[in-house]
């Protein structure tokens, strides 16, 4: 297996982008990554694009060749594949790219992720997102996606004494971080009181415990480490790329206070990279809801199970804390265009490891981790990246 590097990154601003189409977003992120890597479009050997439901959101499937077309690259007949794993689609695209380069099948691979979520109206976005849950045995009976995380939140609160304020402190931290990220959907800081005064979505989760509906795209260019230097000096190495599955319904899981797939993927990733949780300098985790970040920092081994809420409340996950989590603002403040999220996480970690994160830079960051989850935990993808 060959060693693989990230040699370029690019993303659109995240937000409610009324003036931009799915095609505009894909083209913008891809071109930015290509230019950042110092390659030309014709150098690309393959493309993988993550998307959860372009069919549900913009009535367009078959988006992989479309991405090639909007980038003006159709004459090179580059093989292009769409990858779907609900909200983990971007992370899966990244992992497919990694596998393609590591195996020696392809050299330069463009990895992308995109979702255009604001072209549907009313409760339709809620309905499309509910497809990530079990349609026949959860959604059919009136369950929603926030509802599933609310069940986990209530369970965690009951079992470990996690509080409503601790949940809110995740959102407060991520909005603070997002205030320093020009690409974030929300740049405003919020308080615990703001969270608790926002409308209830699925008790105990308030609106400000939930990530928003977002448009956006992100991309990255991968290459074998030994030829990466030909193109750029800004090289970040992929130390681990792992993935795990579990039941897509919450009720069929073995436990409700954790995402077993995330625990499994994380264990494998630490082993593959030869590092331990304490070696990670910065992490982007899948905070689709505040409870998800609390479970994530426990599942990843940064804190003991049940202690994630307290750790967050005490500031241990702040940019200057013991383990900075979601310096980008996370899904909560940066926004969550579901298919793009996994690749946007890679963008943030690469920026941190290159020392390009500006006001939200973590000092001397050398090893970073991404944790991307599909649905309520049916899919989990973990990547560990390092400076060379």
């Amino acid at each position: 297996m060959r060693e693989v590097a990230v040699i370029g990154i690019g993303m659109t601003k995240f937000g409610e982008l009324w003036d931009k189409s799915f095609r505009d977003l894909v083209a913008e992120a891809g071109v930015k990554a290509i230019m950042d890597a110092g390659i030309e479009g014709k150098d690309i050997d393959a493309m993988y694009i993550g998307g959860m439901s372009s069919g549900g959101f913009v009535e367009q499937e078959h988006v992989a060749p479309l991405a090639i077309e909007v980038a003006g690259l159709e004459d090179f007949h580059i093989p292009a594949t769409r990858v779907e794993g609900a909200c983990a689609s971007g992370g899966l695209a990244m992992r497919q790219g990694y596998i393609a380069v590591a195996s020696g099948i392809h050299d330069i691979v463009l990895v992308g992720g995109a979702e255009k979520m604001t072209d549907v109206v009313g409760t339709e976005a809620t309905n499309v997102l509910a497809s990530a849950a079990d349609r026949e045995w959860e959604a059919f009976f009136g369950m929603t996606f926030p509802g599933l995380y609310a069940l986990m939140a209530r369970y965690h609160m009951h079992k470990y004494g996690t509080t409503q304020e601790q949940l809110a402190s995740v959102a407060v931290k991520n909005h603070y971080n997002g205030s320093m990220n020009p690409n974030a959907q929300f740049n405003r800081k919020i308080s615990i009181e703001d969270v608790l005064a926002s409308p209830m979505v699925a008790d105990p989760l308030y609106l400000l415990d939930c990530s928003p509906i977002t448009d956006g795209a992100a991309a990255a260019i991968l290459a074998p480490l030994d030829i990466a230097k030909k193109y750029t000096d800004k090289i970040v190495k992929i130390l681990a790329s792992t993935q795990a599955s579990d039941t897509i319904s919450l009720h069929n899981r073995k436990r409700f206070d954790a995402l077993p797939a995330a625990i499994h993927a994380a264990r494998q990733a630490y082993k593959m990279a030869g590092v331990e949780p304490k070696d990670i300098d910065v992490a982007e985790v899948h905070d689709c809801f505040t409870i998800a970040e609390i479970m994530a920092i426990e599942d990843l081994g940064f804190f003991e199970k049940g202690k994630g809420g307290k750790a967050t409340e005490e500031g241990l996950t702040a940019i200057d804390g013991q383990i900075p989590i979601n310096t980008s603002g996370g899904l909560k403040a940066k926004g969550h265009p579901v298919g793009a999220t996994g690749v946007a996480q890679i963008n943030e970690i690469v920026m941190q490891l290159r020392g390009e994160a500006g006001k939200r830079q973590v000092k001397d960051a050398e090893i970073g981790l991404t944790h991307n989850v599909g649905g309520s935990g049916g899919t989990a993808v973990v990547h560990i990246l390092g400076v060379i």
Partner: protein
Amino acid sequence: MAVPRYWREIPARYNLIGKRCKVCGRVYFPPRNICPVCRRKSVGQMEDYKLKGTGVVESYTIIHVPPPHFEGEEPYIMALIKLDEGPYVTGQIVECDEKDVHIGMRVRATFRKIMEDGEKGAIYYGYKFVKEEE
């Protein structure tokens, strides 16, 4: 959606017919074709099994932002319920004040309308849960 999609799930949704693995005796609901413990040994050995419909609330939420077919019903209680035979299900709890629902509460399944597929579409039925009187 075409009616057969709902029709084929009627035994499970109307009468809580799940599956029991004849090899190990474990009960599954919603029904499964393969026992994840016995795997290949369970092929062809999964028999219909009617669950009693009684169980206990393991966790719950109150839905304030509903999906399209449930608009107007909010707020309503959704729960993760451990059935007495072992499996967990997701279901709505009705005839219960949202202040009364709690983890550990005993419930039993009851046959109710779940939703209508638009004004002219079919009406779909299934189980919801009510508090079990002591």
